[in-house]
Structures are given as C-alpha cells and as structure tokens.
C-alpha cells in the first residue's frame, strides 16, 4: 500500500515547523528524509504516526486517511523505529513480542509467539532471545527494535535516525537490514537520517527538508553539490561510484 503525505503542516506554539509537505512512498521503496537539525524530520514522522496532530493536510495509507483509522488499526499498519530505545529489563523475546500488541488480544497467543520466532530468525537474532535488552550492544539493541517493528507485520515503517548512535559497522548493518526487509516485506519505509552518505547508499530516493518544506526530492544519482550546500550550508565534493550513484560526499 502506498504511503501518501498530502500537504502536512504543523506548528509548535504558532511557530511553523512544517508547511505543506507532500510526497508518497511505494511498497518496497526506502526513502531518506534529510535536513539540518530542527528541520522538522522527527516532527514529520510524529505527524505521520498521529503522535502529533497536523494543523493541515492528511496522511493516507492506500486510500485510507490515518486520522480516520482506529488506534489499533493504525498501529497494525505503521511501525516505528525510534532513534534509541530506553534501557529495558525485558528480554529480547518480550520486547519483540510487544510488536504484536496492536493485534488485539490481552495476552500473547501462540500465534503471536510464532510471528516473533519468524522475525527473530529472519534477522538472525534468535540466539539473543532470552537476553535482557540492557545487556545488548547498541547495534544489537537497534536490530531488536527493528524486529519489534517488523513483528507488527506493518505496511509502513518509519525510522527516526536509527543509526545516529551506532558505530560505522553497525550503521551499515542496520541500513542493510532496513533495505533488505523493505524489499522482502514490500514495506513503504521512511528513514529520517543525518548521514547523507548512508542515505545515498541504501535509499532509492532522498527528500531534503528545508524551512518546513520539501526542498528537493531526488534519486541518489541526481544528487548535486549545490543541493547539499543549499540545505546544509556546507561545500562538499561528491565522489561518484558506479552507474553515476554517489560513492561518498566529502566536505571541502
């Protein structure tokens, strides 16, 4: 199902943060949401998730307005991966099992546990299932959070800077994982991310937020130094890789 954002606007105490933001994401497509700190990336994700009420505009999944969905139905269709989860005492299995909460029973059923088992297996996390979350490394914990999101069996995956506190290897692992599950599960994935290098490497499209609007929406191979300079105010040089896709972006 297509995720469609249609003219979303939002203000914090009459200070406008988002102004008529529109775009759509197809199933199996992973899109990066980039921009400077305070550009409104996290706010946009929260508006999509209905954690915040936009002052204008609508979020549609397929042809259904998210606002008109019941809370549980909305939670079944959209899953969220936060930047970092608080330290938890729950075991990995219990954390991933939380992803089944939107499916409505008051206590986990065998069916829910089987879903968790499949997701842990798919993400190669089965060996961690009995470990308390607080004993995991940052990279492992972030993968478990992704597993929790996938256990919901969502159609839309929203990630809020999922790599910001990880080392280089884990950043690559997490982005690879998101890319893999986006394609295999046919998810519409939106990743708010600071690292443009990771974005061009793993995402099929990049959206740049500036002054509350989509300043540029382009494929990685269309990215230019001018766009980066206009958004971030930094001069960069783009080193091109194969097929004209940027290999890396270096500040100069």
């Amino acid at each position, binding site marked *: 199902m297509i995720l469609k954002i249609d003219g979303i606007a939002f203000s914090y105490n009459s200070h406008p943060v988002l102004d008529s933001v529109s775009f759509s994401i197809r199933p199996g497509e992973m899109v990066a949401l980039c921009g400077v700190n305070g550009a409104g990336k996290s706010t946009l994700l*929260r508006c999509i*998730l209905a*954690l915040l009420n936009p002052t204008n505009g609508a979020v549609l999944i397929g042809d259904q307005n998210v606002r008109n969905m019941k*809370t*549980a139905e*909305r*939670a*079944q269709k*959209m*899953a*969220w991966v*936060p930047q970092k*989860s*608080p330290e*938890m*005492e*729950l*075991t990995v*299995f*219990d*954390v991933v099992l*939380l*992803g089944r*909460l*939107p499916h409505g029973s*008051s*206590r*986990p*059923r*065998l*069916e829910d*546990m*089987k879903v*968790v*088992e499949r997701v*842990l*297996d798919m993400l190669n996390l*089965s060996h961690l*299932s*009995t470990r*308390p979350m607080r004993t995991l490394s940052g990279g492992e914990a972030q993968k478990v959070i992704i597993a929790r999101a996938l256990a*919901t069996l969502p159609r839309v995956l929203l990630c809020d800077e999922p790599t910001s506190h990880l080392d280089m290897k884990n950043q690559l692992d997490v982005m690879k994982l998101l890319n893999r599950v986006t394609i295999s599960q046919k998810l519409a994935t939106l990743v708010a991310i600071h690292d443009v290098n990771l974005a061009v490497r793993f995402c099929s499209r990049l959206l740049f937020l500036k002054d509350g609007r989509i300043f540029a929406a382009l494929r990685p191979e269309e990215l230019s130094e001018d766009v980066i300079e206009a958004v971030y105010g930094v001069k960069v040089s783009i080193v091109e890789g194969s097929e004209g896709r940027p290999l890396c972006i270096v500040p100069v």
Partner: protein
Amino acid sequence: MKNHREVCDLFVFFGWGSVGMSGVHKSVVDVYIESLQKKRLFFLILLTGTLLLAVMALCKGTYEISFREMVRIITGSVGGPESVVLWSVRLPRIVASLVVGAGLALSGACIQTLLRNPLASPSTLGISQGAAFGAYFSIIVLKASVLSVGFSAFLGALSSMAIILLLGRIRGLAPEAIILSGVALSSLYGAGTVLLQYITDETQLARAIAWSFGDVGRSGWNEISAVFFATVFVFLLVYRHSWKLNAFEAGDDTASSLGIAVNSLRWQCIMAVSVVTALATAFHGLIAFVGLIAPHIARRICGSNHRHVIPASTMIGALLLLGADTFSRLIIGSGSFPVGITTSFLGAPLFIYLLVRGKR
C-alpha cells in the same frame, strides 16, 4: 488448521506448554514458554512460604497456641481464651498484614512502571503525606473519633491524588513532572502536618503521632475488607493490562505507536492504585518501603515481564509485611509493636543496596 491453533492457544493459556516441546531442538517459542512455566514454581514456593508463616504467626505470641490446638479452634471444637486470641487478635492482624502488604506492593509495582522510575513508591505521589495530614487535622482540629480519623486520612490521601490527577490531565504532565509534583505536594502536606503538631497540646500530639506509626493491629474486619476488595479489584484491572504495561518500559512514544492510549491507561491505573494506598494508609497508618522493596525483589527473581511482576510483587508484599509484623511481635515488641517502624528500618539498607548494585 484453525482448530489446531486454538488447541495450542489453550495449552499455552493453561501453562501446559506448546505442542512438540519435548523434541531435541527447542525452538525460541519453546524456550520462552518453558521460562514462563518455571515462574510457576516460584509462585508455588512463595504461596507455601506465606501460608507457613501465617500458620506460625497464628500460633506464636505472648499466648502460645500449639498447631493441634489451632486446628481444633479453627474447626470449632475448642473455645475459651485461646479461641478469642486467635479469632479476635491474631487472625485480623495477620489478614491485615497480608492484605495491606499486597495492596502497597501492587501500588508500588504499578507506580514504578507507570512513572518509569525504580525509586517511585505509593508515597511518591504524596498520598501517604496527604493521609497523614488528614489524620492529624481530624485528631487535632476536629477532635475526632478513631473511625473519623480513618475517613479523614482517606480524604487527605485522595486530595493529594486529585491534585496530581488534575495537574496531569489538564497540563499533560510527563512522568518526571508527575514525580516532582508529588514531591512538592509531599512537602506541602508535611509542612501542614508540622504546623498542626506545633499548635496542638501534648495529649492530642501523642494521639496523632500514635496514628502515624503504621500498625496492622488497629483495624477491624470492615477496614480489612475495604482494603481487600480494593486490592483484588485493582489487581484484576492491572493484571489485565500487564502486557501493555511492558510497553511503558519502551517509552511513551513507542507505547503510543503500538496502539496504547498511554495517558488514559496511566491515569486509570494511578487512580486505582491511589485508592488502594489511600485505604491502606488511612486504616493502618504510614507503612514505608513495602511498596518500594517488594517490586524490586519481584523483578530480581522473575524478570521484568509484568505478567509476573504484578502477581509476584503482590505476593512478596504480603509476605514481607506479615514477616515484618511477626518479627515485630515476637522479637522486638510485646505483642503490639507497630510494624511501620520495622519496615522503615528496611529502607536505608535497600537504598544502599540499590546504589551498590546499580538500578534495576
């Protein structure tokens, strides 16, 4: 296929394990279900320990009753002074210990989860201090009877809860702000209590201070029943939401994204456990640390899944208060030593323990 799944669900629901668990290779689900089943043994041990302690507490005291005599009294074949001691003195005291300990521990477990603070307890929201102020006001200003003191303490506790609730609902307070509001209210009620102590005479002051010593021996069956029914009702309410309470550990935004009405559930549970705490405090005085300690012990033994934390905290709270009261009666006092003093002495070692071991 559907029937097979329903059968499997029934197996899990009744804790009989999943089909195919006895195979050589255990699946992740099998391991999880086995870990759930192992907790049953702990609950059985806890229940047995509590029963044994209750029987010992019934028999032991200034007036010794043998086990055989106790059985004969309970079955109604023996009367006399032993029967009076057992039915009118020891049994209400033991049941009060179990019920109040369970209620305070249940409240503590919920408040720690709902406010995401391991050092939160029923007194964090200023409920105990509100109750104390209500009792002091009743004794010193209204010169009230024992029953009115309990009622006034209950109103004092509820007033604290109502103020926190109003602030929280109207201003949308975050968990940290709720705790700080509780601290502020505690300080306010504490100041009011000190003012009342200052303006009164020595007789009234002695009566008020005697109220503030937590004592499970002062209540009758009506008061015990009120705390019992409130505790059972709140236990059922909270246990029904135990899976959702797990999501509170992940933070409000994550819990909301999982379809939980976070604020509504938080306030619903806080209101419910506040009533239990208010009743327990109003009728039995200030009993510190049971609500703080019991959930910590439960989490250390059972892990953090609220499916276990809620019943384990409740049972451990009952056992702790009964143990503390029996210890007070048999070792320290001459039959009527206030248990609140004993439980208060547990506080300092616990805080040191938490600091040394790190928060959990």
